[in-house]
């Protein structure tokens, strides 16, 4: 138990250091940008008509008058007090904006993550068990096609077919025009989330399916499967009893470790479906040079990704009997 806690502690410290690194890198990149936030957001013409005082006030608001190092240290100090600053575009605390957006994205990401995981695992098991035959070829072909398709184009296609032609789903905007945000029902939200979730699920399958397939083939070539076969176990029983058992853990671990890809995909997909989530906010913040918001979003996303990796690491200790029992004894 003790060394398990130590292991977790070490991982946590590493995670915090990595997050610090992420914030520094993000900050430096944003500061290095030659794009002037004043020009992007206020406009050249408007700036020309303003007085020196007004411009100075704006510069102070966008933070362009403070040296980068001072700004970063100030930001870091505030973060330690739980304050991520104020979004310049939304004029709200960054954490409030992220909270709202994450609430919108959460179910979308989670459902896509679960569906793609289950679907990918199933496809990988089937392909591995049918190695070289048509189901394997079909699944491999599908994975090649899907991993070569840009997520946003797939989103556009689904939008075109299901929203424009068939009219089953709304074309965009979580809140319909002319309706109060509060009047939007849960059913409405769900309807808006179906196509983005579908897109993310379809694209998230390829990686896990191919990995599971390889692992499944290894398992089916193992000594213990040979012995199971020699003892008269049927192919179905071998795949379900031995194959699935030995393939599930690496698959779940991989799925935890690939949170980053689903979040990356959501940035694109939310943009296409105008879904008011975290990804869309990131794009808005990036285009509008909203440093505090983009910084906040990057750090929060990285924290989610690292947490996924941490869970993947710890999961082995919980599920693998070798480590579990070994730790219990030691």
């Amino acid at each position, binding site marked *: 138990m003790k060394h398990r806690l130590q292991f977790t502690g070490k991982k946590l410290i590493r995670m915090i250091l*990595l997050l610090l690194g992420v914030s520094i890198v993000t900050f430096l990149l944003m500061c290095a940008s030659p794009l002037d936030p004043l020009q992007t957001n206020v406009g050249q013409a408007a700036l020309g008509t303003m007085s020196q005082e007004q411009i100075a006030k704006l510069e102070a608001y966008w933070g362009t008058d403070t040296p980068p190092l001072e700004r970063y240290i100030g930001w870091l100090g505030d973060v330690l007090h739980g304050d991520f600053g104020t979004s310049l575009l939304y004029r709200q605390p960054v954490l409030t904006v992220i909270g709202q957006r994450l609430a919108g994205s959460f179910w979308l990401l989670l459902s896509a993550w679960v569906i793609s995981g289950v679907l990918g695992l199933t496809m990988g098991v089937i392909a591995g068990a049918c190695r070289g035959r048509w189901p394997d070829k079909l699944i491999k072909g599908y994975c090649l096609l899907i991993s070569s398709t840009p997520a946003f*184009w797939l989103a556009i296609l689904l939008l075109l077919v299901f929203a*424009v032609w068939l009219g089953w789903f709304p074309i965009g905007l979580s809140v319909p025009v002319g309706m109060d945000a509060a009047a939007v029902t849960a059913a409405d939200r769900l309807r808006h989330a179906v196509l983005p979730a579908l897109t993310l699920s379809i694209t998230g399958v390829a990686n896990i399916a191919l990995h599971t397939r390889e692992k499944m083939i290894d398992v089916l070539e193992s000594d213990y499967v040979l012995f199971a076969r020699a003892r008269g176990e049927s192919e179905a029983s071998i795949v379900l009893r031995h194959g699935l058992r030995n393939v599930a853990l690496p698959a779940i671990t991989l799925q935890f470790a690939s949170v980053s890809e689903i979040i990356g995909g959501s940035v694109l997909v939310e943009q296409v479906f105008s879904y008011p989530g975290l990804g869309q906010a990131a794009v808005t913040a990036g285009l509008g040079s909203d440093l505090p918001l983009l910084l906040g979003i990057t750090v929060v996303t990285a924290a989610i990704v690292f947490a996924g990796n941490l869970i993947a690491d710890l999961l082995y200790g919980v599920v693998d009997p070798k480590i579990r029992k070994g730790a219990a004894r030691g």
Partner: protein
Amino acid sequence: MRSARILDKGIKSRTIRKRRREEKDTNRRLQTILFLVAAIVILTAVTVAGVMTEGYAAETDFSRRNLAPDLQHPFGTDWMGRDMLARTLAGLSLSIRIGVLTAAVSAAVALLLGTASVVFGRKADAVISWCIDLVMGIPHILLVMLISLACGRGFAGVVAGVSLSHWPSLARVIRGELIQLRQAPYILAAEKMGVSKLQNIRRHMLPHLLPQFLTGLILLFPHAILHESSVTFLGFGLSSEQPAIGVILSESMQYLTTGKWWLALFPGAALVIVVILFAMLGERVRRLLDPSSVHE
């Protein structure tokens, strides 16, 4: 598989079967090489054609606005009367050129850092591993966006963004491979005989890495192209005057509701085909160089 055949009859049919199998193998090898040649020819042709049609792709003609696909304009025309086939070709060409450039830079960075983490001792390894984790912790799209912003978007932004975000996985592979190779008896022997570390790596280890490096490099193209178009689509990449696939698809979004499906369908499908060609190319090269690594 399991056949109970009389022996001498079996021997005869076996030799025939053996010959047939050998023929099939040489056929397969030939097929692979033919595929490689064909894929490279197609990709080169698209690149060259794209460069040549760039002028025509930018030509506006308001007398032929928003035409659905027909024989004269197989991919249709857009709201400024530009021919979509020419725009698509120009866009693909640009994508391929950027893909090749960024994949090459990425692979070079990966090789450099992967090697450095093995050569320069534990501290360097710790720092580089940390960097790898760091880069992998930020979703690719977000990182490419940030780097592109830092470079002021545009061509330079996309190239820097994609090249600087795609090296970690290949760097990891190279590092792992080198660590394994370092323990190989002949390397240890060479070290004992006083061959310097760097020389050892150049002379004995890098040649071993070549297959992995080459396939890694080719398999980077699809990722690079996809991320370039994605970031451009979001507005962080190539500017809207350039005939990039990301720009074309981003513009097409405004015309979807009015039923101009061809603006999105053909350019996207063409991009998918190019990416698949690259992915298959990489897979075939891998199978040629290291057949045991692939479960068929």
